[in-house]
Structures are given as C-alpha cells and as structure tokens.
C-alpha cells in the first residue's frame, strides 16, 4: 500500500500510454482499488506508434520531472505493429536525449497490458520514487528561462518568476 506521507518534493510525472493496453491496465489498477502516488498525469494515445518523440521533449520542457511511455507488449499491438515501430523510435531517441545530457533515470519505457494493473502501479510508483530521489528536473526549466545575453532583462519580475520555481 502506498503511504500518503508528505514529501518536500512532489515530482510531476507525465505518462504517454496507449489506449488498448496500458490505459486499460491503469483502469484495472483502479477497479482493483490499488494505490499509487498521485503524481502521474496520463495522456491517452491510440497506440505507442502515435507517440512522437517531440512530445517527450515537450513534456520535459513543460516541467515534467519524469516521463513514462507505455504500451502493449510486443505482439499484442491492437494495430498490428505500432509498438514495434515505437520501440525502435524510442530506442534511438533515448540515446539522443542521453547524449545531450538528460539523465535517463527520468524516462521510463514499459509494456503494460490490460491485465497488468499491478505492473502499472509498480511502474508509476518506481518512477515517482526514483525521480523524487533525483530531485526536480532543473535542466529544461532553467533553459526555458534563459535568454541570449542581448535579450536578457534583469527585471525584478523576471527574478521573482525565476525564484518561484
């Protein structure tokens, strides 16, 4: 069971999942009344094949501390092969993110079937706790606030905005 103790840092976890397997698996976790951290926000896609790497990038830029991508097990894809394409795409993309300095501890890929409510809970819990341990994803947040020197204005408002995060 998940303990609702208070932490200093509540990471923001964004999950990109396919409708047929992982979304249904997360539904099953619900109908089974399993408990997991409330940090995850689920975005439903028809298929992992639809998940564009740009979305992961966008999620980090929008302040996600961790991203979970999850779909049907190989061979179970509702759309025959979408997850096979996704698997290659993400195998490549994670290497790229790693090379530009993103800690891959913040990015989790998984196969969670409609029957694996427990696995969903495990995935979300593990990622949340791991990212909590890693602390906030500062890199993209700081980057978003950075300006070219020529455009930077050292205004009190900006300073305040910066300090608020």
């Amino acid at each position, binding site marked *: 069971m*998940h303990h*609702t103790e208070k932490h200093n840092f509540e990471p*923001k976890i*964004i999950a990109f999942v396919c*409708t047929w397997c992982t*979304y*249904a698996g*997360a*539904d*099953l*976790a*619900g*109908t089974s*009344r*399993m*408990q*997991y951290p*409330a940090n995850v*926000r*689920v*975005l*439903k*896609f*028809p*298929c992992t*094949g*639809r*998940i*564009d*790497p740009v*979305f992961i990038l*966008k*999620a980090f830029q*929008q*302040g*996600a501390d961790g991203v979970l991508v999850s779909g049907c097990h190989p061979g179970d*894809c*509702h*759309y*025959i*092969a*979408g997850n096979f*394409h*996704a698997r290659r*795409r993400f195998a490549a993309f994670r290497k790229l993110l790693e090379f530009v300095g993103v800690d891959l501890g913040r990015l989790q890929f998984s196969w969670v079937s409609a029957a694996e409510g427990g696995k969903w*809970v495990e995935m979300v819990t593990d990622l949340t706790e791991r990212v909590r341990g890693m602390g906030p994803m500062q890199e993209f947040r700081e980057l978003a606030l950075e300006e070219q020197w020529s455009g930077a204005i050292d205004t009190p408002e900006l300073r305040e905005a910066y300090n608020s995060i």
Partner: protein
Amino acid sequence: MSRIGVFICHCGENISRTVDVERVAAQVGTLPGVAFSTDYKYMCSDPGQGLLKKAIQEQRLSHVVVAACSPRMHEKTFRKAVESAGLNPFLCEMANIREHCSWVHEDREEATQKAIEIVGMMVERVKKNRVLPTITVPVTKRSLVIGGGIAGIQAALDIADCGHEVVLVEREPSIGGHMAQLSETFPTLDCSQCIMTPKMVDVANHPKIKLYTYAEIEHVEGYIGNFQVTVRKKARSVDEDKCTGCGVCMTKCPQKKIPNTFDRNLGMRPAIYVPFPQAVPNTPVIDRENCTKFKTGKCGVCQKVCGPGAVDYEQEDQLIVEPVGAIVVATGFDLYSIEEKPKGSPIKGYGEFGHGKIPDVIDGMTFERLASASGPTGGKILRPSDGREPKQIVFIQCVGSRAREKGISYCSKICCMYTAKHTMLYHHKVHDGQAYVFFMDARTPGKSYDEFWRRSIEEEEAVYIRGMVSRLYQKGDKIVVMGSDIAVGVQVEIEADMVVLATAVQPQKGADTLAQKLGISYDKYHFYSEAHAKLRPVECATAGIYLAGACQGPKDIPDTVSQASAAAAKVMTLFAKDKLEREPIVAKVREAGCVGCFYCRKVCPYGAVEEKEIRDRQGNLIKVVAYVNPGVCGGCGTCQATCPSKSVELDGYTDEQIVAMIESL
C-alpha cells in the same frame, strides 16, 4: 471563444468519497473557455444525461467534458448523449477521475488536486477537438471466397443462400478440396464423397455463385466493402461453355501414363483429365506439361474427337477483375511431405522414416485413397509396391507435429482421430490383419470422439503403443519398425507390411504470397492470423477479410464447417447495411506539406497509404503526395509520429490536441 461545459460525476460515492467534486467543478469553472460547470450524482443515469443535454441547449455549449469513469466505460454513452443534443459527438471528451484518480488515491487533497488537473487537461484538449463526420463507405454486396474445399463451399453456399453474389475461386480444376479425397469420416464413418458431392453440385448450380476453377488470385486492391480482385483464370485448353463433359477426350487421349495426383500418384490419368469422376465442373483440363500436343506439337487427338469442338489449344490465361465487398479466405491445408525435405520448409526431414524411399511407407492421405471406394484400388488396402494386402500395418502419429526439435511445435489436431479411423477401416477391410499405432498421447476432445478412439482399440483391435519410432528400414519385403513402448519401458520391433505416417498439417503452399496480396498477417508457419484469438476468431485484422478452415490452423471437418458458416455470418453482417460506418479516427494528409517521402507508407500496418498526384489546372504534375484511404486506415497514428513534417495527422489525436494537454500540465 469556446463555451465548454464540464460535468463532474460523483459516481455515487465512488468519486466523491476521495475527490471534492464541488471544488473540482468550481475550480475548472474558472478556466478560460469554460462556460458551465457542475457536478452530479450519476452522470451516466438518465437524469444525468438529461442534465447534460439540457445544459448543451440552454448554455449553448460548444464542447463538453464529462469527468467521471474511464472513457473505455462510458465514452460512447456520453458521445451519444451529446449527439442527441445536436453537438458533434467528437466534441465530447471524458476525464477519467475514477479509475485513474479516486479509486487509486486515498488522500482527499491530493486526489482533488489531481482531478482538477485531469479535468483541466481534458478542457484544453477538447478546445482543439474538431467536428468529425462519421465516415461512411459504400459496400459492394458481393463476396469473394478463396478456396473450394469444404470451408469455401460452406461459406459460399451460406452467403449465396442469403441472396448475395459469391465469386468462388479454386486453384485446382475442380472444387472439393481434401474432403473429396477422403474415404470415410470420423466419428460417424460416413462416406466423405457421399456428403461432399451434393454440396459441390449445389455450388455449381447456385444462381448466386460464380465459380472459377483452375484459377488463382492475381492481385487485390481496395478495402472493406470495396475490393477489386483480379482473378487469373488459367488456360484450361477446354472451352467450359462448349464442353458437355462426355469424357471422350479422356478415353481417347494416347498419353495415359501420368501419375494421378488426386490419388496421391497411385493411379494414372490421361493428359486431358478431370481430377476425379465427380469433379465440379465436370470439364476436363489439359495438363500442358505432359500433353504430347503441347510438348511436340503433334497429336491433337482430343480436339479431333471432341464433338462440340471445345478443345482449344490456343486458349490463354484470362485476367478478370471482380468487385467484391468482403473476402473469405479458405485456402485449407497441405500435408507435410514425407519425401525429401522441401526447400525452405521450416521442419527438418524425416530420414528415419525413409524419406519416402520405401514404397510401402505412405502418408495418411494416401491411405485415404487406398481405403476409398472410388480410389485406385477400388477400396482395397493393397501395398503400393506389390499390390499385396498388408497383414501387419503400423501407424505412426505426430510425424512433424509437436516436434519442436524438427521445427513444428503445434499439434495437427486431426491425426489422432483419423489414425483411429484408419485402424478401423483397415480392420474392416483386412479382417485378419493387425494394426499397431505409435502415439505420444491421444487427443480426442469432441463430440463422440473419445468413444470412437476407444472403439478402435476395444472393438477393432488396434494395438496402441505409447512411444515414438526411432527408425524403420526395409528388410526383404517387410519394413522393420523400431520403437519404444514407454508405458512398459521396452524396445519394440515390428515387422510390418505397410507403414502409415500421420504427417503434420501445414498451410497450403503459397499461403504467404496470398497473404501479402491480401494484406493479412500470418504466423511463422504461414497459418493466417485472426484478429483476436478468442473474440474475433474468424476476422482478419485487415477489415473485410475473414478466415475459414485450416488456413487459420489445423481443424477437422465440423470445426471447419462451423468456422465457414461463422465467416459467412460476418460477411452477411457486413452486407446488412448499404453503407459502412466507422469511427472517424483516421489519418489525413495535409497535401501542402507532403513531399512524398512515403515514410507513412513504410510504417503503415494496414497498407492504407496510397499515392496521389497533384496537378495544376493545365494538368501538369506538381507532385506526388501520400493519400490515406479512410476505409483502410486503422487509426494507430504511427504515420504521424513518423512523418518528418507532420503532414499527416490522425483525427482525434492531432498534435494540437496532444500539445494542448501537455501544456496544460
């Protein structure tokens, strides 16, 4: 500006117990674009839906978000309700605050906060939703059945009896398939041909069935409801319209020494022939490879003797395009060859069983022909080598099947039963003979099956030996069969007069090529894959294509016939409507941005991407772009994630919708 209505469901107490629904409603009510927000005990109830409809009309809502259970539960319900209130159903989204929130969190504050964010995310999403018209595709109410065995025949008759035209295509010169070759059938031992031939005749005489024999599928285009199938009708060299089926040509043909494949090469047939006397159609075909006229240019006897002048040496293959709305694939099975290992075959050879070099080692189908009253021996069990009656006969089961080390791990399903039948037929015909069966275990589920198997042992005196045969060899005119009896743990050696191998059931040769033409998937053995093993066992993942019989996996006759009728029922369900409706979650190409790299086509699991030429007003080609056929598109969106310029977009899951959701968080 959008006027979004948000409806927060308590779900009795399922949601409201952990989520402060009133606070959620109040909070999301302040979001830009939200015009109305409320909470209600049971949104899915009649009054709940009434509330929704009323609000749409009174508040002039442009979009709706229902925050309740999983969309997998009630999305259809609410979209219907929204539609009945005059909004496009796709302007309604559900926010899952039950399965994904109230049920999985205990802390009321946390859960409420999360619910607010989930609803907020769906509010941003719904703003970007577009009106999606339901896609309708016309349905051509004709169907194609590929394969004229019992599966194809049954499916064709069922569909045709329902009043829809059927095009039945058979590769061989006659329909009938393997069932026409069988002697008697388990578990009732009725004569196969007696029950089969009337059905064949029904096909031939059915006004709604168009029969192409000696024909193959050349090319398939189109999609559910709208296939264009090109059939190659091979040159028969006999005009079917003129031929009366008198058979004079066959009797007069000087070339009569061609092994009869229908009889498993046990008998001979002429170069102009029908495969078997009850063939449908009863029109001969010239075997051009073996015909003297075609080989040397001399002869021409058949043409001379043919009264109606039906023999036509000049005949060429014909390509016929048939428009159909549905396709039933019933291409059946083949037996694993006991001869040399065929090239490219997944299973290793059976050298230990003589590789087909010992003439009296035969396979089960050959035994069927020997046992058949219309077979080469007139139903007498005689050795192919010397025509003697075998007094000791050994049946070996699971030759190829369930032999992982050989490359096939599946069970061929029918062998236990037909071997039992063989022992009975043998015993009926050779009263003083003894049958032995080597088996791994007997699989006899099915109505009256186990009783039948027991009868073969208990009444027909077959000796079942649990164990496999390690080797057999010719010794004089005997075949020494060496095996083990694992039940008693001894080596067994039997001097047999004849050995019958129950070889594995495999898909027809060329099953993979046909699948590629049809765009359907198949497993590693080339059996065709159904869309869902349990819930959609007769449908292919490719819409509009259905499976019947052993092409999908080994099956006996009752199962085959059932599946054929099921496939026919699916076709009739499809034909019950004039137009096909489908969810408009399909990809669309933004032609201005498309540069025609066709990455989308490369990754599309459905083959839905076609080429489209863009021309200017003068007709000059500007560029070739991708076009997604909405009838074929499965809606996975892999194309969009792959398209470098995002010039193809999946309706219902556009980049705008997804980015709006990410940005809301």
